């Protein structure tokens, strides 16, 4: 049964140093608030997993939370590089970051296999690329019926999945709609799961394309605008300006550290973080 908790409590209870953690989201519904709370609580040694690590992963990596990243595309969508991610890989700053990289199709297959309780999944992929040479989680497999050679990928089992959704109802069921990515699979691939939501409601929206029953979710925290600068369809819009601004905030180590200190470490929670951003953007206008 999903327990309704504060985000700080939920992160403290569910995310431990050294865990394998995915904060999933495909442009839409990215759990930024939860990422900030992990930084605030100074977790270390995490193996971070995500198909599309973007700004919140840049923040986590730049703050030294992670020892390893498992991913398929790391960038600031529509803007450019993730400077903190690049700095970690290119210059081992603030600490070395081991990487294990895949294609999107491979990562999706790995999540789906784990969600299905299988130790591996099968796809048509990786053949001819240099990707499989750098990981032991991709090997050839032969179809027992046709003899055709395909590719097997290892199931991607998680300790913790963290996602943002639109709604939770009184019984603890969670609803998402719009682009829902691989979030259901991530939750079902994880031992524990944490969902931040925009709103608690009496009745889930009829458009809800994905409903996660309460009993597969460990904790729910109500965090309005909790995906900012990402968006929650029906609630908030994507803050494209923030993604663009992140490019210069993150380019320099000191600027980055200063920004993180003032906007994350020195703020008590995500609501305070958002108020600070609002004040700054009014001042700039």
């Amino acid at each position, binding site marked *: 049964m999903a327990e309704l908790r504060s985000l700080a409590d939920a992160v403290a209870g569910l995310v431990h140093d050294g865990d394998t953690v995915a904060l999933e989201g*495909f*442009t*839409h519904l990215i759990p930024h608030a939860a990422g900030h709370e992990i930084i605030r609580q100074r977790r270390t040694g995490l193996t971070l997993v995500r*198909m*599309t690590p973007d700004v919140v992963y840049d923040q986590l990596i730049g703050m030294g939370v992670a020892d390893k990243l498992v*991913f*398929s*595309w*790391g*960038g600031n*969508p*529509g803007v450019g*590089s*993730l400077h903190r*991610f*690049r700095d970690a*890989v*290119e210059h081992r700053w603030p600490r070395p970051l081991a990487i294990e*990289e*895949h*294609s*999107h*199709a491979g990562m*999706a*297959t790995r*999540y*789906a296999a784990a969600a299905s309780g299988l130790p591996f999944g099968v*796809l*048509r*992929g*990786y*053949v*001819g*690329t*240099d*990707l499989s040479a*750098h990981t032991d989680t991709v090997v050839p497999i032969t179809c027992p019926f046709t003899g*055709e*050679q395909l590719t097997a990928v290892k199931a991607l089992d998680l300790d913790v999945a963290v996602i943002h959704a639109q709604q939770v109802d009184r019984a603890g069921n969670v609803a998402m709609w*719009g*682009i*829902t*990515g*691989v979030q*259901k*699979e991530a939750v079902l691939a994880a031992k524990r799961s944490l969902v931040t939501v925009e709103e608690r409601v009496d009745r889930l929206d009829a458009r809800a*394309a*994905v409903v996660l029953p309460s009993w597969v979710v460990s904790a729910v925290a109500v965090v309005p605008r909790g995906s900012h600068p990402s*968006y929650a*369809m029906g609630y908030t*819009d*994507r803050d*494209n300006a923030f*993604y663009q601004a992140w490019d210069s905030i993150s380019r320099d180590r000191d600027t980055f550290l200063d920004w993180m200190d003032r906007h994350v470490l020195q703020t008590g929670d995500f609501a305070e973080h958002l108020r600070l951003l609002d004040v700054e953007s009014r001042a700039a206008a």
Partner: protein
Amino acid sequence: MSAPVVAPAGLSADDVMTVAASRQLADGATCFVGIGLPSLAANLARRTHAPNLVLVYESGTIGAKPTVPPLSIGDGELAETADAVVSVPEIFAYWLQAGRIDVGFLGAAQIDRFGNINTTVIGPYDAPTVRLPGAGGAPEIASNSREVIVVLRQSTRTFVDKLDFITSVGHLDGHAARRRLGLRGRGPTVVITDLGVLRPEPETNELVLTAVHPGVDPAIAVAGTGWPLRVADDLQVSSPPTDDELRVLRQLQRGRS
């Protein structure tokens, strides 16, 4: 069509590239749209000669009809205008892998003479000079689409003799290597750059310059290529953007900014 040798005023090389790329998309085709340049070109095609082009994004949006070209491949506009929105595992398994995509439309950081693509690293993998974003959907878009169109700016930095990393397979070392590996699509059939158009020679699968854009000296394309680029005997000049293409392109660019 005879083409003027100079591009209209105010037209950038990127504009010409985008328009040329958009023309490669046939009306009614299903197109798996990669992040970046391809998305702008694909949306231009849908708003000009290919109104029934089906845009499929790796975010799971099928038949998206954005009025504003998306900044990311997961913008809300894509979901709101799509015929169907499916999960990410489903878009790759049921739609791309199953062979339902006519055209995979990709950008690239580096490309080689056989249309192989690198979007992973510049320099050695374990100590890269530049860490690029990585594979994303490209490897399986490249292997499982019926054909692949690549769009990227042409220079010795991008058109290289040897890739630092093969992220997505074009024609490997050519000579029907794809078929030998069991890849089902035909691979890259055309590469569109800011200088011209390259196509693989049927036998060797090596990219050959088959057209230059108006006003481009083929020698510039050769100089902007990290291998000895072959130029087709019957080198064409691409027709310049039409007024209509340009008008829609400007609308799309304004909408995005």
